[in-house]
């Protein structure tokens, strides 16, 4: 169990200072991507697709775009971003020579990943709001969900960073983990159209499934009857999954990184 103090925020703040310098570059992709998906799949494709559980297709995919932003934000920040800081810039080495501990550096990075998720998710939320796709006042709760979901994804990502011998290594989790999730977590088609076993797998192993479930509930009040579960049960399971897995990987990733950085 790592010992953390307020100093984690100093590491967070360093990353935030860099972000504010490069904000224009960071802002645009997060804005354009959901717009393109909504136009291509929502309007373009959606006209050919009958409603899904009473929802038009564009309404169905909108919350998924938010969830994907949550996943990508933290994952890329805690893999590529952290790796560059750790390995090429040696920023972590510099910080660790001060009263900030190695655990606090990693925790600060994870909190920053979560923040990136929150920022990206908020941008996507704004886009889908402009498209008129928000159907519930609960949508504001997506923001805290983005933070904790981001923390979970970032922690998983950080474990890869602890193991990465070079930057190309991240192709593995990108293509073997993120891409399957992108398609198979109830994002662009309902999970209930897959066989039971596949639904079990998605719920058990794919973190994005749970983030999508909650996002969809908060934005559109629709909940897919995955595994035949009723909405309350499903959402509770998803929430619990995110919390348990998040806490687990938060601790594990910090320990793995500590081992890597201090031999």
């Amino acid at each position, binding site marked *: 169990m790592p010992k953390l103090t307020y100093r984690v925020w100093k590491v967070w703040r360093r990353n935030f200072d860099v972000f504010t310098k490069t904000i224009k570059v960071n802002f645009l992709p997060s804005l354009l991507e959901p717009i393109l998906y909504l136009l291509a799949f929502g309007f373009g494709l959606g006209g050919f697709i009958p409603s899904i559980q009473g929802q038009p297709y564009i309404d169905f995919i909108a919350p998924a775009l938010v969830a994907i932003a949550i996943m990508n934000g933290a994952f890329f920040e805690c893999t590529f971003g952290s790796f560059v800081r750790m390995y090429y810039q040696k*920023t972590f080495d*510099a910080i660790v020579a*001060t009263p900030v501990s190695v655990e606090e550096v990693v925790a600060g990075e994870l909190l920053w990943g979560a923040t990136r998720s929150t920022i990206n998710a908020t941008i996507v939320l704004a886009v889908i709001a402009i498209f008129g796709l928000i159907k519930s006042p609960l949508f504001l709760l997506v923001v805290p969900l983005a933070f904790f979901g981001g923390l979970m994804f970032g922690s998983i990502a950080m474990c890869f960073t602890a193991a990465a011998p070079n930057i190309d290594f991240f192709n593995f989790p990108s293509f073997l983990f993120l891409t399957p999730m992108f398609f198979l977590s109830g994002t662009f088609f309902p999970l209930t159209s897959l066989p039971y076993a596949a639904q079990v797998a998605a719920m058990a192993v794919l973190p994005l499934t749970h983030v999508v479930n909650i996002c969809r509930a908060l934005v559109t009040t629709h909940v897919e009857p995955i595994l035949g579960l009723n909405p309350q049960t499903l959402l509770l399971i998803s929430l619990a999954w995110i919390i348990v897995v998040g806490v687990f990987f938060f601790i594990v990733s910090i320990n793995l990184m500590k081992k890597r950085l201090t031999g």
Partner: protein
Amino acid sequence: MKSAGALFSWRVFLSFLKKLILIQLFLSFDDFTAVDHIDFKVYKGECVGFLGPNGAGKTTTVRMMYCFLLPTSGELKLAGLSVNTQCREIKSIVGVAPQEDNLDPDFTAIKNLTVYARYFDIPKDEALKRAEEQLKFFQLEEKRDVPIAALSTGMKRRLIFARALINQPQILLLDEPTTGLDPQARHLAWDEVRNLKKKQVTIILTTHYMDEAAFLCDRILIIDRGKIIEEGKPAELVKKHVGEEVLELDYDEKLIPTLKEAFPGADFERLGDRLQIFTDKPHGVFEGFLKDHPMQNVTIRTANLEDVFLKLTGRGLREE
């Protein structure tokens, strides 16, 4: 007097009260013993130099001193604080100027300093004030708002030095501080080290520059293969190991008997087609010889720390 062959122990500590704390250090990772049973002590206000070939264990030892690596056994204390339990306190009184460039490439020179100051809980105004002072001293004022990608190696080294001082440390760890600096910058850095010595800052530095070690350090430790093989004041080490003067001339087999007769007991070192003769006799002994045997391509010089170093660690190259 200590002999290199005996199993002696040295002690590591830095103490305000100059009290001895007996410590032994042993560190190994991955079956490779980087530092093997060294212990030594450093007194407050001293400047101690670590010399050694690449891979000797100097950087490892320095890294242990700011808790970057932990010793596998033994104890290491700085100002009475143990690295095993009091890392934060140690890091707040220690300043580190590492060998590598780990400045923030996204920030300007001044922002690098103020961001670093934040880690020490230095208030914003104070941090800015100290940063400006440091930039001024190291003549980097013009580069204050320049992103560091635009700085030369020398300027970056100076900035790293400035950054190490931002928390006004009691103990300064300098890992090869003047590597890559031009002579002006080196002398500037040496001035700052001497200023700090006056302020009773304890300084530990590693270097390959013998003139730097001889000029700055009160004491030198020569480390090779993870062990301390010699320790002492620079001038004493020179006198003890290589004598007073060195005569360098072209190697000529025919001359050897004459030379051996003229300089009994002197050390002879052959390097390729040059010969070095070390003597501990007072100055003038070589000049006298050369009057009677005039030669071309001859140099007489005072023996220095580099001679000591090469004698003790050999001339073979080391892999890092």
